[in-house]
């Protein structure tokens, strides 16, 4: 039996008044796959991500998560983890309280939450600061907490907007490893980024979005083949295609 894509966008379009930000976008991410969406500023990457997470309603088209239209099946959000581009801030909650809150929302017991929080905190060496107010954290630490929050309930789909901005080198490596392990365990990752090395390092497939349209997608080898440069890195491919 054919496996349903974990994330599927079918002819998704978004218009803000007269401006079409995303135009008839078809895109799918399979379970076990990391799909990186890259493109210039204003290409519609964040809008796409926000449509997948229901923060923006598509003007037309459908967003399916695990085969269900997320607009009609909000319960499917329980299988979704979202890491926003701006690390979310509840100024007067500590990082630990925020993570416990996320665990409670997902119906985890306190013991289970604590176990998962501890395990993820240890990976990022965050244990020292986790009892401080979220507003006092550096950008990188805020980002780490939102990553932990998105993974705590062990979702099947991870949607990530700019995953490594503000992270130190070691944390970047850890984050990439976490995403890879997540996909290897059957999860699907849709990430958009300007950091092409991240896309090159961990993505199974890459899509280039420009002016709201998916210009091209495929494995890095397919893209190299397309521009007829066998060992070209993603930056060269990206610039070549956009030119």
């Amino acid at each position, binding site marked *: 039996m054919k496996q349903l894509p974990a994330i599927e966008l079918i002819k998704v379009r978004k218009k803000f008044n007269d401006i079409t930000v995303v135009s008839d976008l078809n895109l799918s991410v399979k379970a076990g796959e990391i799909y990186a969406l890259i493109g210039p500023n204003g290409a519609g990457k964040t809008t796409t991500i926000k449509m997948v997470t229901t923060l923006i309603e598509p003007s037309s088209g459908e967003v399916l998560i695990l085969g269900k239209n997320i607009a009609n099946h909000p319960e499917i959000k329980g299988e979704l983890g979202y890491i926003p581009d701006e690390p979310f801030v509840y100024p*007067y909650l500590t990082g630990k309280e925020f993570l416990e809150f996320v665990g409670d929302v997902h119906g985890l017991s306190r013991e289970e939450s604590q176990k998962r929080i501890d395990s993820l905190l240890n990976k990022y060496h965050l244990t020292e600061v986790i009892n401080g107010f979220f507003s006092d954290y550096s950008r990188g630490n805020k980002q780490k907490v939102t990553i932990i929050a998105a993974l705590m309930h062990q979702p099947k789909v991870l949607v990530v907007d700019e995953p490594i901005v503000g992270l130190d080198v070691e944390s970047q490596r850890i984050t990439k490893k976490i995403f890879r392990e997540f996909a290897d365990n059957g999860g699907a990752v849709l990430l958009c980024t300007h950091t092409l090395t991240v896309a090159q390092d961990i993505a199974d497939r890459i899509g280039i979005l420009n002016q709201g349209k998916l210009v091209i997608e495929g494995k890095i080898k397919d893209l190299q083949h397309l521009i007829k440069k066998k060992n070209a890195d993603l930056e060269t491919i990206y610039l070549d295609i956009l030119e």
Partner: protein
Amino acid sequence: MNILQTLSNRERRRVANWFKDNTATKLFVIFGFLAVVFGIVFTEYRIGSIYLRFANEYAPFGPAMAVYSLKVAVFLLFVLAVISSTAISNSTLYQNRTLSHLFTLPIKPVSIFISKVVPGWLTSTGVLLLLIPLFFIYNKYIFKSDYFVIVIGFGLLILSIVSQALGTIFSTGIAYFLGKITRQKQLIIIFSLVFCFGILLKLLFPSGMFRLAETDSYSTFQSQIDKFPLMGKLLPTNWLVDSLTGSLSLISTLSAVLVMFCLLAIVKIIGSKYYLLAWRQAQNQSYLAGNNLEKGQSDFDFPKIGKVKNIYSPLVINDILSLVRSNTEVNYSLFLGSMLIILIFSVNSLVILKDTTPGLLLAINLIAFVSVSLIFLISAMRSIFPMMAKEKFTAWFSFSLPLSREDLLKEKLLVSVLLGIPSLPVVMIIVHGLRLSSDKALVLTLLMTAIVMFINILQCLFGSISPNFKEAENPDAVSTSSLGILALMLSLLVIAISTIQLSNYFHSNISGLGFAIRWISMVIVITTPILLIATKSVQKYSL
């Protein structure tokens, strides 16, 4: 644990944690707020007692008038409760950053909606509780109801739920139908508010009211009062007053309960079906990358650097643009602007009575002066006090310019003075409405304008002594720091001293020149040390 419990736990923790930071200042602000509330309740009780005792002596006219006054009070506070719950719900939909996180979680929008409705309901209940002293006095002096406590408790509960429900319906409707608020929409809203205020004035002061004093017969008097719009039997707010003034009716009580349940049903539908849609509409275009200036927002061109003769100009323009292009700041200004319009209407309405009530004109003059000063003080606390703290975001740029830190302070002072200029036409309109002699009008105009400028300068200097860079994103939090409170107290003291001096001038106890010398001396005495401290402090910023 169910989801509502989880959400309320998070809110409880957030509030508890908020107290842990700068606890002393926050307690001070809360006690100050409670003192103001106590002062309002006490004044209401004292004035209400005098009025209702006086009314009771002139039966049957007095008690009839007292019932009408109660109906007016309930109606007014009900309107205020609806406005405050609309404002709170709207600020949640338009500004609350937590919603963009909560909507990505597997929580039903109706649960998020319920958790956000509670603060508005508490506020509208707080507003309506101000009715208790009035009903208590009425019960004491005019008509003792056997069901006083039950009716008051039950009635206020229904009114608070209904006002919150209406506020929620209005605010969700605004977000759903208007979406993101553009400049044009802001203008429409402000004109609608002014129009509604005009209708409110018509309802409160119907033309027949001024003819009541000429009526000798009680039946004519009562029939005239019965014709007033706020005496309508169907007006929902009158049910509470009628129940307390002797005509408790089972049918009207059941109708009130029915209305409440109908509204709650509508609110439930809004919460489950339209809340997320309304929020999305309110946020529409917020995620658009690139140049997203709407028409009318970009008409304030930044000057070409080559043409600028001194380095202050771009900084001044930048500071002003950061205010006039911010929707939050513009909304706040529109709110204060509508208060000024209400003040202008009120002054013009009250001045008509100056010939019938001796001494009233002086009181109106002083009230107008204090009101203008307070409105501009609120504005300065919001937009001028946090100006230096907001430099946190652009410190990498502004502190690396070939400018000394004193220069940066001078630039902020210049902006403070410039922001005071729009007060001049407002002041001129208000003073014109007071119909004073030309010399008094001139003195009042100059004083009002000068005090606005002075308050702006004071707020700027205090805001520069030890800016709360940590809260730079949140201007309200910056203004409620210890120094913000101190600046507020000093500004209030300046307003109080100026009011006393103005009263002396109007009583001809001092000449115009004497008044000017005293006032300018006060300004110099207060400003000099604060200026010196601020100049020293800017050197010590570590960003």
